[in-house]
């Protein structure tokens, strides 16, 4: 077990700057998830930690050792690949034992470790099979087992669940979480799926275009996104955005556009003050919208035209248009409404977010 330290890490391909000034400290025993859309540099970062990509500039430390020039075999890491990368000509047992054989472990010790790992993963019955005789979920387990037997300092996961079907993915996600709990090995996990990131990560690193956008625990990202990108990326369905103008009216500030006029809660009036008279982006999550009732302040209500009603069972998603912008509201399944109706929605003022119209940074 060890911490992993990335210092000012950069990766240039010939004409493409893939990873830009990444600074990150991953604590011992921590589960850190790198998440972002494709091409954001998350996989490149992981591959640099693994030693599969050369570093253009910056430093990577595993434990207290700078590993920049160290070949993958000496870094004491294990990696699980998206396509599992099981050795097709070897049995499951040999797949798991390969890393130990390469490191010249005793026969008895190899058997012991393979036994323990296959017990943990429930694949004892598959040990004599070849990878092609396994289902996707079983292959995934073998790939995990191959990482576990090594008992490495760091686990690296490169989108390990994205080749599984949706149901199995949820199940394996839970198992991965349990496994990490049990083994306590430092883990770096790459995914493009924000749900995976939120459920698995002790901390989540959101990346875009090679830059780290925000690092934080899942709820921090959800509650206090640093910018519009993080706000829109984390959470499902994504946050609603509306272009508004901040207007001053005595002591109060209002965020207004042709479809809505929302009073800015007192708590953030001071922060938003300098922006009065200027354009901004208002953000509100679907789950922070509800059907307006008598208790709601008129300054937090607005009319919305229902365009689509999606009944998911546990909730209803209303796709509505509010003036020029469209929004999604998540309401309880008991709400009765139909397409093309006009309803009155209220928002939770404590949960409002504002972003600078130009820099997109949170205000």
């Amino acid at each position, binding site marked *: 077990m060890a911490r992993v330290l990335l210092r000012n890490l950069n990766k240039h391909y010939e004409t493409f700057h893939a990873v830009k000034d990444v600074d990150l400290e991953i604590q011992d025993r921590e589960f850190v998830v790198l998440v972002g859309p494709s091409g954001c540099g998350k996989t490149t970062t992981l591959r640099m930690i*693994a030693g*599969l990509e050369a570093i253009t500039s910056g430093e990577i430390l595993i434990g207290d050792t700078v590993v920049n020039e160290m*070949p*993958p*075999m000496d870094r004491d890491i294990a990696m699980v690949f998206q*396509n599992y990368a099981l050795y097709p000509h070897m049995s499951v047992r040999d797949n798991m034992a390969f890393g130990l054989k390469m490191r010249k472990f005793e026969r008895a010790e190899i058997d012991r470790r393979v036994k323990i790992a296959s017990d943990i993963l429930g694949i004892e019955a598959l040990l004599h099979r070849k990878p092609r005789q396994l289902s996707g979920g079983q292959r995934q387990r073998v790939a995990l087992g191959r990482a576990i037997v090594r008992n490495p300092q760091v686990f690296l996961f490169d989108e390990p669940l994205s080749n599984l079907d949706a149901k199995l993915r949820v199940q394996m996600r839970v198992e991965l979480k349990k496994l990490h709990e049990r083994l306590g090995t430092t883990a770096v996990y790459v995914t493009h799926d924000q749900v995976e990131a939120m459920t698995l990560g002790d901390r989540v690193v959101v990346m875009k275009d090679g830059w780290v956008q925000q690092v934080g625990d899942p709820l921090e990202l959800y509650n206090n996104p640093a910018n519009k990108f993080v706000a829109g990326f984390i959470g499902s369905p994504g946050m609603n955005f509306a272009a508004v103008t901040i207007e001053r009216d005595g002591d109060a500030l209002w965020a207004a556009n042709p479809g809505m006029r929302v009073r800015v809660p007192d708590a953030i009036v001071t922060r938003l003050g300098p922006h009065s008279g200027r354009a901004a982006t208002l953000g509100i999550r679907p789950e922070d919208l509800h059907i307006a009732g008598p208790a709601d302040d008129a300054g937090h209500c607005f009319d919305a035209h229902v365009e689509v009603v999606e009944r998911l069972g546990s909730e209803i998603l209303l796709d509505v248009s509010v003036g020029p912008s469209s929004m999604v509201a998540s309401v309880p399944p008991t709400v009765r409404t139909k397409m093309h109706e006009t309803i009155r929605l209220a928002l939770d003022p404590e949960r409002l977010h504002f972003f600078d119209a130009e820099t997109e940074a949170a205000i």
Partner: protein
Amino acid sequence: MIEGAKWRRWVYFYIPLGGFLIWLLFPFYWMLITTVRPDGELYRPWNAPNYTPFWTSNPTFEHISYLFTETLFATWLWNTMVIALAATAISLVCGVFAGYALSRLKFPFAGSLGTMIFVTYLVPQTLLFIPLADIIRNFRIGDSPWALILTYPTFLIPFCTWLMMGYFKAIPKELEECARIDGASRWQAMVYIILPVAVPGILSAGIFAFTLSWNEFIYALVFLSSPQEKTVPVGVVSELIRGDVFFWGPLMAGALLGSIPVAIAYSFFVEHYVSGLTGSVKG
């Protein structure tokens, strides 16, 4: 498979397939029937009363025994086998390593080097034997098996390299990366992981190389002159056609016996060979 009525299957599947098979196999049948046909029938004019070109009523082994007793056919077979195996072995080793390097290692001009190797394969042998003959003479290895063992790789190595390059590219690079993270050096990853996975590709490259050297004619004709050094394709043609007289029986017997080793090699590895050509690697 063709669906629907039975006649459709016959019209669209069995009859065309049968026609194709007959078209394809007829030369071999002709070879076989000529081999076992006695001389009396072979040189019978077409308007003779008992003219039967497609079968024979008195099969004989006289041509085969002639081949082994009156000519050096057994020696030619042995020569061809030794030369083909040695040239194939050299070419496979070079081709596998070169193919691996060109498809997996990043080094300057890797792409253009690959193209250049392919271009050398395109130079026709009928031109290349002229400079090669000079080299053979300078090294004084003419009229010995070495003349062929060392010149066949000039066209076999480019061929094997290209076939293996394609095959290595089809193997997911994660396999190798995973092995290297698991503690293998690049060399170990290649030996323990990539080569075993590439066995079908290596086998098909080997079979192809073996067939090409077994059937090779022009180099063997130019570089070998003594009858006891010759290979089957050259020996049969040079010793069994005397002037304008064709000894059809022994000629066809030689051709038949000469194609058997290749046919055996193919049928033995046919499954590997097909999957090698289609480049399927199942994870």
